[in-house]
């Protein structure tokens, strides 16, 4: 970032940074103060408490300095709020919440992470919280910041204000903004904005730009009607789905033969003129094939799966819908035939031919017959019950067994198993969790969460810690790292990057370093032993 400061400067509101706050993740390009005309009525972030509104910076975005204790109380309260809303993944409620809020509401201002989409004329398009139409003034303010900097021949990427980061992403006539106090690195937040933009393209394609060429005041909100759940579920996935920052996809663990059987019947379909055929279980891939030379980017997979899973109507009956894969071709629609075999397992057949519905319906009938005959669907349900890799099952000595992912323990429904998990917290050497990403395959595997990371709040925190680790390992400014070992009050985090894979592991904060490294070697060996079950091998259509 420092190298590009001439074109893209990063504005740092220095007065607001508290000493000791963690700002090492993003190095600032210049220490310039942004001196914009103050307009407290529409800023939304004007101090609420009275007296805390210091006018010294003159900045548009102003964060009050709350007392440490007050902040801590608020943080705890927020956590309690979140936990009481949903303490497990399944109870998360999709769709927009807090629709009644706007930038005048205190609750709205206190939300930790906002996402906005707006047009370059300042018209709101999407807001994570609150009613877009009521946020017109706030959108106009964001637009003013972007155009103010643009008028100076620059582009604004990041505004830092105390605990808040305001991240901007400009995509032609569309502006995307994230305002966050979550301390996630700039690169992560920017990556999230990229995905939100991609999700918008999945629904509308890039041809939306033409509407703005014809009419700069074009109101885009009606075109996104009914898609709140698609965006809210994507934003939710930023806090639990590693695919959102790894740019890789993950497979449902299955025996090699089962996955082969699914792949073979999909391949027949692809040979009959289907561009991509994918069989999925929730967000995990069972098998997928692409027509010759067609390649599917993991980000497109993520966005497509999110689109399908967050749209309830696909579960009701078979559907045929236009979709755009932004990495494949951002300008054109493909047509997706979507069918759920059961609550979790669904088939997506993508074609360029808008008349292909009846052909794809026939393909699905054939696929369904084969899947039933070869027990693929029942194996999928069994795998869902068994779960993925459990750190408790890490084999002591490398070995390859015939059991499900080398599990030596009793079946998951046995009470014996729970007893064991309860008294052994996590795996050997205090291993709590790991993610292994195969660079060659564009796939990753993530272990199940052990009992030490059982609440959603803990899982979200770990996901963010991995994100931070991922960012620091890929920071071009610091140069490529091979390994990283860091210890804080929550974990020991270990990262190991080679040409072939990246391993991210979380241990007990008191874990021994040498032992942790040894354990990571064992994890890699374990993955090699079961790679036939956890990855989709061969004929990877992923290349770009």
């Amino acid at each position: 970032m420092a190298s590009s400061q001439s074109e893209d400067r990063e504005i740092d509101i220095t007065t607001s940074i508290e000493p000791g706050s963690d700002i090492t993740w993003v190095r600032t390009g210049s220490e310039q103060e942004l001196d914009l005309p103050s307009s407290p009525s529409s800023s939304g972030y004007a101090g609420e408490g009275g007296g805390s509104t210091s006018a010294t910076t003159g900045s548009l975005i102003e964060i009050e300095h709350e007392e440490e204790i007050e902040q801590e109380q608020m943080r705890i309260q927020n956590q309690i709020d979140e936990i009481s809303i949903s303490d497990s993944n399944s109870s998360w409620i999709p769709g927009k919440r807090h629709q009644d809020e706007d930038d005048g509401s205190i609750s709205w201002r206190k939300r930790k992470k906002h996402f906005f989409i707006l047009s370059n004329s300042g018209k709101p398009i999407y807001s994570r919280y609150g009613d877009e139409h009521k946020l017109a003034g706030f959108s106009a303010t964001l637009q003013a910041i972007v155009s103010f900097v643009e008028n100076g021949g620059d582009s604004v990427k990041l505004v830092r204000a105390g605990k808040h980061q305001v991240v901007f992403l400009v995509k032609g006539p569309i502006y995307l903004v994230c305002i966050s106090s979550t301390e996630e690195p700039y690169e992560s937040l920017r990556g999230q904005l990229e995905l939100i933009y991609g999700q918008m393209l999945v629904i509308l394609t890039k041809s939306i730009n033409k509407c703005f060429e014809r009419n700069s005041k074009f109101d885009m909100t009606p075109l996104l009607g009914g898609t709140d759940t698609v965006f809210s579920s994507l934003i939710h996935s930023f806090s639990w789905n590693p695919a959102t920052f790894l740019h890789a996809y993950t497979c449902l663990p299955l025996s090699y033969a089962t996955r082969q059987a699914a792949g073979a019947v999909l391949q027949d379909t692809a040979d009959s003129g289907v561009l991509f055929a994918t069989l999925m279980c929730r967000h995990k891939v069972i098998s997928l094939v692409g027509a010759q030379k067609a390649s599917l980017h993991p980000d497109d997979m993520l966005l497509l799966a999110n689109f399908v899973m967050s749209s309830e109507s696909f579960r009701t009956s078979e559907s045929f819908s236009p979709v755009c894969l932004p990495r494949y071709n951002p300008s054109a629609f493909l047509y997706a035939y979507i069918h759920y075999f059961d609550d979790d397992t669904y088939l997506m057949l993508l074609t360029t031919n808008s008349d292909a519905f009846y052909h794809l319906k026939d393909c699905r009938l054939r696929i369904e017959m084969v899947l039933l005959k070869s027990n693929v669907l029942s194996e999928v349900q069994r795998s869902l019950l068994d779960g993925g890799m459990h750190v408790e099952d890490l084999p002591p000595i490398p070995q390859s067994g015939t059991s499900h992912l080398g599990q030596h323990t009793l079946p998951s429904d046995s009470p014996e198993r729970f007893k064991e998990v309860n008294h052994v917290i996590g795996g050997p050497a205090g291993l709590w969790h790991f993610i292994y990403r195969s660079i060659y395959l564009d796939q990753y595997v993530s272990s199940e969460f052990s009992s030490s990371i059982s609440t959603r709040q803990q899982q979200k925190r770990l996901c963010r810690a991995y994100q931070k680790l991922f960012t620091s390992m890929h920071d071009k400014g610091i140069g490529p790292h091979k390994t990283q070992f860091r210890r804080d009050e929550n974990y020991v985090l270990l990262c190991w990057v080679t040409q072939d894979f990246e391993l991210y592991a979380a241990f007990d904060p008191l874990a021994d370093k040498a032992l942790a490294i040894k354990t990571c070697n064992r994890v890699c060996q374990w993955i090699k032993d079961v790679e036939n079950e956890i990855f989709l091998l061969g004929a990877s259509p992923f290349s770009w």
Partner: protein
Amino acid sequence: MGCGSSFPDRDSGQLGRPNSENGGGQDAKNLRVKLVLLGDSGVGKSCIVLRFVRGQFDPTSKVTVGASFLSQTIALQDSTTVKFEIWDTAGQERYAALAPLYYRGAAVAVIVYDITSPESFSKAQYWVKELQKHGSPDIVMALVGNKADLHEKREVAVQDGMDYSEKNGMFFIETSAKTADNINELFEDMVNYATSRLPYDVLAV
């Protein structure tokens, strides 16, 4: 409540249309009807279909994406069986341009509005015009005022629906997917109406 239906007088003369993929009449007692539902979002198209096909009503609104395909076979009183192949299209504005994809092969178009929403009634008129302009000249159209159970919130008079449909040679009925009122009637009457207007072989399996 006024859940009536009306058949406008139209001579069902030479409305023959080139026999497409529906050909091959083995048993003239078996009909196949390709039907498409069009209309503004939230008027209850999916609810009508799900009430007809599965006998269910789900008050939580699930926005349709693209179009859903469902089929249902019913037996009429004269023991004719009719297989409906139904395209339940998304009412969202972004899908309007893609509607031809779904109504192109349809013999019957059911255009739905919400009797509590005048906007949805004008949207229905937009769809009628669209079909008159771009649809098959033989397509049989029905105008359906849904949510008839919400009569205390009614903003579109029965007479308005009736007048408009008559003027445009459409079948008209008011329904409630919630109470199931007139749902089966809609589909059954549509068959009678369509067979009276279309040469029988167009619909025969």
